[in-house]
């Protein structure tokens, strides 16, 4: 079976995240096994629970959340990238991290990469 892993390095307030979302959702609808999305660099900001985007603008985070719920799509954020960008990752019951995201290390990227038939970066 063909598997896909996706790396997102653009922040949630960038219009470029729309393209990443559209690609991942299209793959899921087509029945591709998307084994995970790894948010690295500015992509880690997607997991910041306090991000507030004007309601008339594209709600990238809500859309990722929806994909996570609907398809059990694993969304990993890189802990180092997140902490550098002001998301405290140390507490257990963390109010700053959006619950749709899993705090992971770069080791998760290794796992996704070795398991995936294709790795695509956005």
């Amino acid at each position, binding site marked *: 079976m063909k598997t896909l892993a996706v790396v997102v390095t653009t922040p949630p*307030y*960038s*219009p*470029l995240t*729309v*393209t990443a979302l*559209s690609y991942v959702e299209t793959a899921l609808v087509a029945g591709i096994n998307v084994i995970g999305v790894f948010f690295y660099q500015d992509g880690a900001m997607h997991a910041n629970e306090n991000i507030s985007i*004007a309601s*008339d*603008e*594209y709600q990238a985070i809500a859309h990722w959340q929806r994909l996570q719920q609907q398809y059990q799509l694993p969304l990993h954020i890189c802990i180092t990238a997140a902490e550098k960008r002001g998301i405290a990752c140390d507490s257990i019951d963390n109010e700053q991290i959006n619950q749709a995201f899993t705090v992971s290390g770069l080791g998760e990227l290794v796992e996704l990469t070795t398991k995936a038939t294709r790795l695509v970066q956005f």
Partner: protein
Amino acid sequence: MISSDTQIEDNLSQQNGLAIINSKAPFSSDYGKDALDVALIFGSFEQKVSLFFQGDGVYQLIADQDATLVSIKDYLKTFSAFEFYDIEDIYVCQQSLVNRQLDEAFHINDVQVLASVEFGKALNSHQHVLRF
């Protein structure tokens, strides 16, 4: 040391207020929107602000674009409010248009197309410059 001549020149030039250079394409970053927000706030405080479009920034002015096709809120439509905010000086670099094979067809009125030297001179007449 600051000469009094410089001081006088400063005060005179201050009449021309802020120039904002837009250098980024409209739909791949927040730069255009962030520059627009600055322009409108200066307008609403009745401070003189002029807009310059250069490089890929000229794409912000091109007619017939439709951000909704890529699910982005179309902030370019707000450009039509420039008149209301007394933002009257809108300059676009002709060379940037030519390089990109773009016609002088814009989605707002009163855009002044300037050759590089004139574009530079218009920029030069301002007291402060921000670039996005």
